């Protein structure tokens, strides 16, 4: 049985919920009230997650508290097609890891700007936004050339991977941090594609995509 320690409005928690949803996995949720209860700072939670990070995923003997780690674990363990995490292909495994790292940079910039704007967290907001724009420029260029090559996703495969799931939340929520995506048209198209992945679930702040053409 999988248990997810979860907070609805957290972009990192949403990464885990997305992965569980697209993999079609059942799980039970434990609400950890990040705000206003600051439940992630409680002793019981710190024992699960020493850095007081959300989400935490438990299955049998495994307990993981870092979003990319949870994605790698879930895909490796529960995706028999190995398409979500193509760990057996060195080049693809490297690419996935690169974009997982990129998603952490997004969390530290676009994500931090969002926490600043929504919940008043202390951040150098100008620096966070500027860094987020730098990342979005890189992402847009990568995705635009991907479209020219007939590639829809972050990694060089015809199927989405956990890299797409990891990068999506902080991109799709960037405007809550005052980081507009108007200048990143290829990023905007990619967010529509991610929303159309089978099993996709939305979260507060993200609307689902409309129907695809027949």
């Amino acid at each position: 049985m999988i248990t997810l320690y979860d907070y609805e409005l957290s972009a990192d928690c949403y990464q885990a919920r997305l992965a569980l949803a697209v993999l079609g996995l059942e799980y039970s949720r434990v609400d950890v009230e990040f705000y206003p209860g600051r439940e992630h700072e409680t002793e019981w939670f710190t024992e699960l997650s020493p850095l007081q990070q959300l989400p935490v995923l438990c299955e049998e003997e495994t307990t993981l508290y870092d979003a990319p780690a949870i994605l790698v674990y879930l895909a490796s363990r529960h995706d028999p097609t190995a398409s979500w995490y193509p760990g057996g292909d060195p080049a693809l495994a490297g690419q996935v890891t690169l974009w997982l790292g990129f998603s952490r940079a997004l969390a530290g910039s676009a994500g931090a700007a969002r926490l600043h704007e929504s919940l008043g967290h202390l951040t150098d907001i100008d620096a966070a936004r500027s860094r987020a724009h730098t990342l979005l420029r890189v992402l847009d260029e990568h995705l635009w050339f991907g479209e020219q090559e007939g590639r829809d996703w972050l990694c060089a495969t015809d199927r989405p991977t956990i890299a797409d799931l990891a990068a999506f939340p902080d991109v799709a929520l960037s405007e809550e941090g005052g980081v507009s995506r108007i200048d990143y048209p290829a990023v905007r198209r990619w967010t529509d594609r991610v929303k159309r992945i089978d099993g996709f679930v939305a979260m507060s702040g993200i609307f689902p995509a409309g129907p695809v053409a027949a």
Partner: protein
Amino acid sequence: MTSIQPGRAWHPVASSGDAVVRHVFQGRLLGRELAVWRADDGYVNVWENRCLHRGVRLSIAVNDGRELKCQYHGWRYSNRTAECTYIPAHPADAPARTICNRTFAVVERHGLVWTTLELDRPEDLPVLPDDGRPLALRPITVAAPAAQVVDALRSYDAGEDLRLAAEAELLLRFDRGTAPGLTILVQPSDATTSVVRGVLHGVAVVDRDRPPLDLLRLHNRALNRVRARVESDLGPLQAEQQEPELELLSEELAELPPLSRPGRSASLRVRVERKWPAGADVAGFALAPLAGHLPAAQPGAHVDVHLPNGCVRQYSVVNAPGEGDRYVLGVKREPDSQGGSSCLHDVVREGDVLAVSEPRNNFPLRRDAEHTLLVAGGIGATPLLAMAQTLAHHGLDHELHYFAQTEDHLAFRDRLATLGGSVRRHLGLDVAATKARLGEILAGYAPGRQVYLCGPGPMIEAAREVAAQCGWPVEKVHFEYFKNAQEIDKESSFEVALARSCLTVKVLAGQTILEAVREAGVAMPSSCEQGACGTCLARVIEGEPIHQDVYLNDAEKASGEAIMTCVSRSASPRLVLDL
């Protein structure tokens, strides 16, 4: 806003490849945000990025292929005209056709989407070398005013043998030898942002699906260098954005709309683009605009067709909103035609120009039902076809029951085919068998269901009777008659007071209320003028009407709150109308 009001009115705002179907591109020109979206029929729309209702950006709306559905309240806006075709909060009402988002003129050329913010501004697009194979580079957004970007681009060097050959406003052309090589356009997004749009000329594209990536990357690198230089020279700009002036709406739209339906009388000129046999004794007509776009027709709407012989007839629009820029009509040849259907069948030909009214919707389709039944008899299928296509497109549960003499008598079989399993055919049934079948169809009323009936008078009568027996409340049973077959009594005479106009008029024997009201100088829309279409409806404030129409249902008639001014009369000596 300084220095961004260029003389050229038309600017590129997107690459053709940016406007993919089922997506809304968010653009910007001269400080104004744009929602750019491609319908499934290929047409690219450029609209103000703002829903008229509560100002929500349409770039977060859903593009369903035919309409944009606003994310906030689900208002639907039609492809091409941006007319609102449906307001879910009031599912029984047809939205006023005049609720229309701001659209901008569009041209798709040279691999780019062009627009102008100015009204009626002739196309002053720059002429680009056209070898039929323009290749748009990746657009590069630069945080700098357009003039600075143009300055920096003069020394553009992609390492290819390109030299600056010509320059126009916000445009630079580079030639390779004597052949045109590259045009660079600078889109002035706002006071501090520009987009560099490059179009390569004369590129040999071997495979349409495999663009020359090396070339695209080469220019992308070079443009990134230009961007880095301009941005570092300028430093971070204060993104002091001035809000664009928003247009005010008409007085009519600013008011809370009344409960009654508005009617309109303006006429359109259309060309018969196609005429074809659409079923036994049924001619199909596709009417195309002479210029511009046709107003969107909501499902259930009809137009008045003014015929060359002077007749005016009403026909339902068969195609669904957002589906093509045409009105598709189906005209059955009536054996006792008084010049309407026979003229359309025998006289009107492809290429002819006809005058038609703007579409009116007096038979609006609710889209808040859990299940919708559409029951069609013969040519009565036409409005129901538009409804069925709309419901199918929105993924709403429905069935279309189509009664006809034979398979050949089914009209628009191509459209029926696309509706698939929701269509039930009932062929060759006599009166008794039809009634029995209606009993089966209408059995099992449940709240959340709605039924729409259209067909010959006796069939609608029968269906309404059966529906009542099956427990359908009258407000769930919607119907439209082709014509009013009743004998209209015009012998009485009475007084009509027009409350809002402060006028009292006398209606004489042989005269209709509509005629008397118009004679007194009060404008009043009308269409069929025989009590069937609902266009000339008026609210009754006081008095006891005699209805004589086939538009209102029994409950509406009993309430005495509305009349059809073309046929209704008064049992009381005086009738007070809200006119």
